Each structure stands twice: as structure tokens, then as C-alpha cells.
């Protein structure tokens, strides 16, 4: 047993670090390390840089232009990128629709869509959730009626993340309303966001951000050639996609970066004239998160090692999701409490402007309350933590 990386893995880490040091734009890294949002164009800029290096799709197999990295390399890459302040991967193209197209799409679809995802030319978004159908995804109602070589799509999707920037949306639609079971009669469509009849309506969240949308479809014509796989078999592809969604869910690298930020803030803030980090209660709260994070890091490595052997992430991913998100929330909470009343001035987030105005107090205080509010989502989305506990009790405990 050896928790350390081997020589080969260490060399790879060095390669990643060098690349990040040389190529990661300083303005982007600064924003991220300050807890500030970046602009859509920054994500694309970074994707193009990665693509140039051949690292546009770390998780794809080589045949489609991916790196072919194994789980440990992927992990090293993710952690280093997070620590350096690289943008997170917007998953909808690279990690969601692409694996589905690779596995179930036809060669024409693969050639048409994958290279543009890799290069950052196409921004994808997700059309899964509908109002009233959260965890119960299969109850979706958006209709697709076949008319010749087109489907006519009508309905409404919600919780669509960053769709305002998207060129394409992948959608689950009900193509057979008479199927005997909910899960049957669903098809998987790729839809050009420029198609007439699509309306994107912002959902403003309590942190003031425009991160999610409702997407309305009104008689939207979608060529049949944009259907992935068989008609009415979409649920199979949807489940496949959800199995891929949890990649790097533990978020250890990003949490380490945020822990450092927390410590930096708590060293600057004063309590009774001394740095807050020296207050015994606050120090113990920081230590608790740090210790939990150390444990999560190893639990994550164990899951990786298992994945490397079995080639499939198991229900253990639920453990990573729960602990990972609890730690993320604890970090945002402690940072907010660290600045006390200066967390209150509301620097409204705007990913358009790539900035978050600090209206009063130290620069670092600006985004903290908004981020705290925003991070309430992490225990809700991607299968709420309650759902994750259901999964553990069913899949691991056998209940």
C-alpha cells in the first residue's frame, strides 16, 4: 500500500504544473482564486488553449481526440488545474453529450459534433429537467412529434445551466406518449439553439446571478438526423449520461484552493485585535474542514484506484458527492463568517461582466455572501444529497 504517486505519476503532475504555469491566463486565474465569476468567453478562451496542447478533452479516448488518460492522471490533472485557478470544465459538451455521441451516435454525428466540442467552437447546454420533474426525471413532458424527417418539439425545460451562451442543447423529449412505462417513449435529440421557436428565459437566483434558465420550445423543428440512437430508447442514453455526470464530484482540488483562501482571509480579519485564525473556536472550525478534506482526498483516491481496476465508478461516488459538497458549503460558510458584517454589502454577481463588485469593505469580502447563497445548490443538484443517501442505502447497504 502506498498513498504517494509513483515516479510516472509525479512526472505527469510536473508536466501539468508546467503547462498551467505557462499557459493559464493570469487574469482568469486571479478571478478564480479571488472567488469571482469569469465570463463565458474566458471558458472558451481556456478551452482553446487546452485544445492547442491536445488536452481539450482529458476524459475522452484518444480515437476521438481525447488524451486517453487513466483515472489517476485525470485526477492529477483536475486537482492541479483547480489548485492553479483554471476554469472548471463546463460539463455539458465535454462530459455529458460527447460520451453519449461516442457511444450511441452514428459516425456522421460523431464527425459533425465532437471536433467542435473539443475546439471550444460549440457551447452545449442541457435540456433534461422540467418543472415538476426534478429527481423524477422520467416523468418529463416535452413532446416531440414526428412529421416526416423532422420532429416538432413543444414544451419547457428548466434548470438549464448557462444556456444563454449555448450553441446547442441536448434534450430528452417524449416521442411516444402512449408507451406503457414512463421510461419508454423518450428520445434523445440534439437541437440547434438558433432554431426558431426556442426562447431562453433567465432564472435569477438569490445571489443575483443569471446562471440558469428556462428554455421554451414552441413548434421547434428538429431534423430526425439530430436524434441520437433509436427513437424511444432515449432513457437508456440518459442513464448512461447520468452515470458519467459525477466525474470529479469530490472537488478536492477546488476545496483545497478555497481552504487556502479561507485561511488567508481569516489571517487578515481581526477579532479582539488578533488575527481571527488565532481565535480558538474559529481555528477549530477551520481545522475540522481541513481534516475532513484530508479524509475525503484519500477516500477519493481509493475510489479512483478502484475505478482504475474495475473501469466503472460505483455507488461510492455518492460518498464523494455528499462529503465533497458538505465541505464546499462549510468553506463558503466559514469565509462569510470570517468577514462578519462586511459580508452583507451585496456585490451582485454577473457572469456576463466577469466581475462582482465589492461595494464596501476589503476586496475579498465582496463575493462571499453571494457565493455562500450560490453554494446552497451543490447539495441539491446532480442528485440531491438525500437522493445520494438513498443510493447508498439501496446500492451499498442493499436496503
Amino acid at each position, binding site marked *: 500500500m502506498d498513498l504517494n504517486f509513483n515516479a510516472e505519476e509525479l512526472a505527469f503532475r510536473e508536466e501539468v504544473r508546467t503547462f498551467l504555469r505557462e499557459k493559464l491566463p493570469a487574469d482568469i486565474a486571479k478571478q478564480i482564486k479571488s472567488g469571482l465569476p469569469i465570463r463565458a468567453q474566458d471558458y472558451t478562451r481556456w478551452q482553446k488553449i487546452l485544445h492547442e496542447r491536445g488536452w481539450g478533452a482529458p476524459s475522452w479516448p484518444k480515437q476521438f481526440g481525447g488524451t486517453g488518460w487513466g483515472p489517476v492522471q485525470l485526477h492529477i490533472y483536475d486537482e492541479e488545474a483547480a489548485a492553479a485557478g483554471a476554469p472548471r470544465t463546463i460539463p455539458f459538451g465535454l462530459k455529458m453529450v460527447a460520451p453519449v455521441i461516442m457511444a450511441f451516435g452514428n459516425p456522421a454525428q460523431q464527425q459533425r459534433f465532437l471536433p467542435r466540442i473539443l475546439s471550444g467552437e460549440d457551447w452545449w447546454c442541457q435540456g433534461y429537467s422540467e418543472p415538476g420533474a426534478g*429527481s423524477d426525471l422520467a416523468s418529463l413532458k416535452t413532446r416531440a412529434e414526428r412529421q416526416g424527417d423532422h420532429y416538432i418539439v413543444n414544451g419547457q425545460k428548466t434548470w438549464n445551466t448557462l444556456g444563454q451562451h449555448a450553441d446547442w442543447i441536448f434534450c430528452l423529449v417524449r416521442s411516444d406518449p402512449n408507451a406503457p412505462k414512463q421510461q419508454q417513449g423518450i428520445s434523445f435529440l440534439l437541437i440547434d439553439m438558433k432554431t426558431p421557436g426556442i426562447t431562453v428565459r433567465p432564472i435569477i*437566483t438569490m445571489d443575483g446571478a443569471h446562471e440558469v434558465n428556462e428554455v421554451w420550445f414552441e413548434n421547434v423543428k428538429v431534423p430526425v438526423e439530430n436524434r441520437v440512437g433509436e427513437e424511444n430508447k432515449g432513457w437508456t442514453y440518459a442513464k448512461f449520461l447520468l452515470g458519467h455526470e459525477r466525474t470529479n464530484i469530490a472537488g478536492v482540488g477546488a476545496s483545497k484552493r478555497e481552504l487556502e483562501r479561507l485561511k488567508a482571509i481569516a489571517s487578515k480579519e481581526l477579532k*479582539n485585535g488578533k488575527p481571527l485564525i488565532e481565535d480558538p473556536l474559529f481555528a477549530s472550525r477551520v481545522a475540522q474542514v481541513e481534516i475532513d478534506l484530508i479524509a475525503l482526498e484519500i477516500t477519493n483516491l481509493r475510489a479512483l484506484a478502484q475505478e482504475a481496476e474495475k473501469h466503472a465508478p460505483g455507488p461510492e461516488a455518492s460518498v464523494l458527492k455528499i462529503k465533497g459538497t458538505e465541505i464546499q458549503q462549510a468553506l463558503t460558510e466559514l469565509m462569510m463568517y470570517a468577514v462578519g458584517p462586511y459580508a452583507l454589502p451585496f456585490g451582485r454577481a454577473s457572469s456576463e461582466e466577469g466581475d462582482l463588485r465589492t461595494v464596501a*469593505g476589503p476586496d475579498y469580502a465582496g463575493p462571499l*455572501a453571494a457565493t455562500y447563497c450560490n453554494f*446552497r445548490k451543490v447539495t*441539491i443538484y446532480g442528485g440531491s444529497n438525500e437522493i445520494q*443517501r438513498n443510493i447508498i442505502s439501496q446500492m451499498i447497504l442493499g436496503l
Partner: protein
Amino acid sequence: MDFNFTEEQQLLADTVRRFVREGYSFEHRREILKSADGWSRDSWNELAGLGLTALNVPEAHGGLNAGPVDTMLVMNALGEGLVVEPFLAAAVVTPALLSRLNDEKAAADLFPGIATGERIVIFAHQEPGTRGETSHVTTRAEKSGDGYVIDGYKNVVSHGGAADELLVSARTSGKPTDADGISIFRVDPKATGVAVKTYKTIDGQTAADVELKGVKVPASSLVGAAGKAHSAIEGTYEVAISALCAEAVGIMKAVNATTLEYTKSRKQFGVPIAKFQVLQHRMADMFLHSEQALSMSYLAAIKCTDPDRNERVRSLSAAKVVVGQSARFVGQQAIQLHGGMGMTDELMVSHHFKRLTAIDLTLGDTDFHTQRFIATPAG
């Protein structure tokens, strides 16, 4: 032992609740939030019309001379409606301070306008690094000729931008955290050297940073005895904590009700999510928390004017701890149980959540009050 309210108190509570229900809808509040000032003079006048601005003003100065229990009932109702007008800052805190400074002239000058709601007078005390410590004052007032020159910085002053006049705490002697040497001055926010930077806060309220740079005030602007304001400030602080606790309790009641409603109507896998035992127990815990918080808001109201300082401090800090922890739990779980919808600006629950968050960050957080409780021996 008696947990009943007087008929007058019942009437007051009903009146304010009716105002919130009928005159302060979520949509109406949304319009107010969008406005430049971030609060509504019309709504303020309505509150004044109900007598709320006179509530804590002595009878001699045209007020109702009500007590903390009345304030509790009002804050409860205002909390439920997330009323953003400066009732706490201008009609609770300032009267509490002014009453404690024993300055007849200032009282006679200021109270009548406060009672009618015409003048908004705001206490500017908090500074960066205060963290709830009432004696943390670095702003200095130096004697100069007939008056004083004030230099310092006050931060996140609740409704500071709405002030017609400020009451500023400044040190006329002593070191930054000495209890002795703190004085209160009347300051015109438009005076030379005063810079008021107004902003909105996450909870939909407004606040201001107030910079004082060589601000000249006459000797007559001193309120109360020079250097002796600390015990008045501390007493005011306890009154303010009591009011905040009551506000949080009103919010939690609303949050629990809306969460219950939401989980009963929201279906997943064909059944209302309220049928899931885990969520039922979560809501039972939310109820438990809010019951304990309610108890402590009663204690806070009764004890915030207790003459025994240690008893007062311990009770108020204990109340702030219980209410802070409850507010955090209830708020976070309400969002969690509302799922994505709870994250949106569109539902009242996210606004309730933000105000609960702000309350925990105001006047000293849970850690601060735990430590203050420990440091204060039982009577």
C-alpha cells in the same frame, strides 16, 4: 409566570400583521427593493401612522413608552413580511440609546421627530473589526476650541444612508477597547468631512459606510456625559439583539410554514415529497429549532432591560446563540427542501433565508456570543 400578552399587545400584533399581509405583499416589496433608495417613504409613513415610530419613545416626548415585549411582537410581524423600512434602526435602536444617555436637551430635540417618523436618526457605532464587541471604538473626537473634531470610520451602518441625522460613537479618551472614554455625538450626514456610502445588503435592506474626516462639531453636539456612553451603548445593544431575535422568530415561523406547504404540494415519483420520512423528520427538527428560538426571544425581551448586567448579558448572548443556530439550520434546510426553486429570487423563501443569514452576522455571531456567555459569570 405568565405567557399571555395584554389586550393592547394583542391588538398591536394584529395591527402590524394586518399591515404586512395587506399592505406589504411580496410584489410590493419587490418594487421597493428595485427603487433607488431601497426602502419606501410611503410604507414608512404607514408604519408611523400605526404608531410604530412612537412605540419606544418616552411619553413625555410624544411617544408610547412601550416595552421590549411590544417591540418583540412588532419585529415578529415585520420579520414575517421582511419589511425593509428602518423600524429597528430608527424606531428601536435610536430611542433605546437616547433614553439611556440621559440628555434632556437632545431628547427634547430629537424624540418628537422620531416619534412622528418625520426624522430618521441613526446610530453609527460599528467599525471594521468590531465583531460584536461594544467597546471597540477607534473613531476619535478631539477637543478643538469650542467643539470637537471627529475622525474615524463606521461600517455597515444599518440604514445609514436614510439618516437625517447620525448619532456617532467616538472616543474622547482611552484605548480602542476601553469601556471608558466613549462619547456620542450628533452629526449631520451632510456636514463637511462626512462621506456616507450607501449600498444594498444581501437581505434586501440598505446600509452605509460612514467616513468621518476632520468633521467639526460644536460642543453642544455631545449627547450625554463625555466618555461615559458605553453602558448606554451596551444596553442599546441588548435591546437590539432582543429585537433581532424576535424578527428571526417571525421569519422562521413563515419559513417553516412555507416549507411545509411546498413539500405537501411538490411531487416526486408520484407522491408529495412530504411523505418521505427523512423530510418529515427534517421539518420536525426545523420546528424544534424554531420552538427553542421562540423561547429565547421571550427571554431576550424580558431580560434586555434587566438591571443586573451579568444576567442581562448572559441571557441576551444565550438568546443570540440559540436564534443564530436555529436561523442557520431552518434557513439552510428550507432551501434544501425547496430544491432548485428555493434557490430562486422568485420565491419569498430565498429572501427569508438571506435575512436569517444577515441576522446571524449582525451584532456579533454565534461564536462571539458563545464566548461572551462564557466570559460572563452567572449572577
